[in-house]
């Protein structure tokens, strides 16, 4: 896939099928460590240890247990091609977290791409679910600690350190107007892209 945002869409579709109510996508760039980290976390049905272990292996998946398909092996391959790695943490009934790291400046790393399209599609096509998307540039990996916040953003002083999109906020504003309305979907895509463009360009994410 030519954009990491397409891998993210693909992995988030697993969360949709896992019956998740909330999916969090966090994209963090660590320029000092030349690293890009993408985490997709859901509160869906989860997988047992054996399934989670095998989920990243395209040859493990058998027809009868094919819930995941080629999406995870694909993301893993893309991560490893840039000197990174992919990890899956899952527990039945609680959810799944997929984390992939990439070499930020590696020549084989695909650009993040159109996250506006990815998030607005997920939100509009699954109106009963909620999605959170965070993008930030962090000083170093120790700083962020995955607490969900955007503390530690390298240049938060000038307000350009991070961006958060949350469909729960959007729905609150919409006050009953469906999030699946095409005009709302188009709004969300450009809202996300316009507000993250500067950061993505500045750090070549």
């Amino acid at each position, binding site marked *: *896939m030519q954009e990491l945002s397409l891998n993210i*869409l693909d992995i988030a579709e697993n969360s949709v099928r896992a019956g998740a109510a909330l999916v969090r996508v966090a994209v963090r760039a660590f320029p000092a460590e030349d690293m890009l980290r993408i985490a997709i976390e859901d509160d869906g049905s989860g997988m047992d240890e054996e399934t989670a272990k095998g989920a990243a292996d395209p040859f493990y998946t058998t027809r009868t247990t094919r819930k995941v398909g*080629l999406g995870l092996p694909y993301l893993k391959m893309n991560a490893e091609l840039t000197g990174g790695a992919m990890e899956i943490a899952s527990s039945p009934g609680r959810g799944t977290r997929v984390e992939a790291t990439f070499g930020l400046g590696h020549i084989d790393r695909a650009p993040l791409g159109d996250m506006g399209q990815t998030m*607005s*599609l997920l939100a509009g096509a699954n109106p009963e679910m909620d999605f959170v998307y965070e993008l930030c540039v962090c000083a170093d990996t120790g700083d962020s600690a995955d607490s969900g916040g955007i503390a530690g953003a390298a240049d938060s002083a000038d307000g350009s350190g991070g961006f958060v999109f949350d469909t729960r906020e959007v729905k609150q504003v919409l006050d009953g107007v469906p999030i*699946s309305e095409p*005009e709302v979907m188009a709004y969300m895509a*450009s809202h996300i892209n316009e507000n993250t463009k500067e950061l993505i360009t500045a750090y070549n994410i």
Partner: protein
Amino acid sequence: MKSLEELKALRDKLQGEVSLRDDGDDKTKVLVGMATCGIAAGARPVLAEFVEQVATRGLKNVTVSQTGCIGICQFEPVVEVFVPGKEKVTYVNMSKEKVARIVADHIVGGSIVSEYTIGSRQS
């Protein structure tokens, strides 16, 4: 810069329109296959273009959503159009460029764009 204020304005505009509509089966549905095969073949920009076209034309009673893999991966991106009271039409090997014509001819005009359909690929 798109802000929440803009979303509020959009809500106010849509609130009037949405309430006039039926949520029932009188809607035209556009479904884009969005499994790994579809995404890899370029389904996301196709769906985004349908959303854009429907939004800018202000088409009411049209929904754009996604579906999974329907088993014809070699024909992805695949788009299914359901017009109420008509048979489902399946468009294959879709691209962003083909979307405008399907919206104009089929969804607005009511005539199927036969050369983009799966039927045109089977001899």
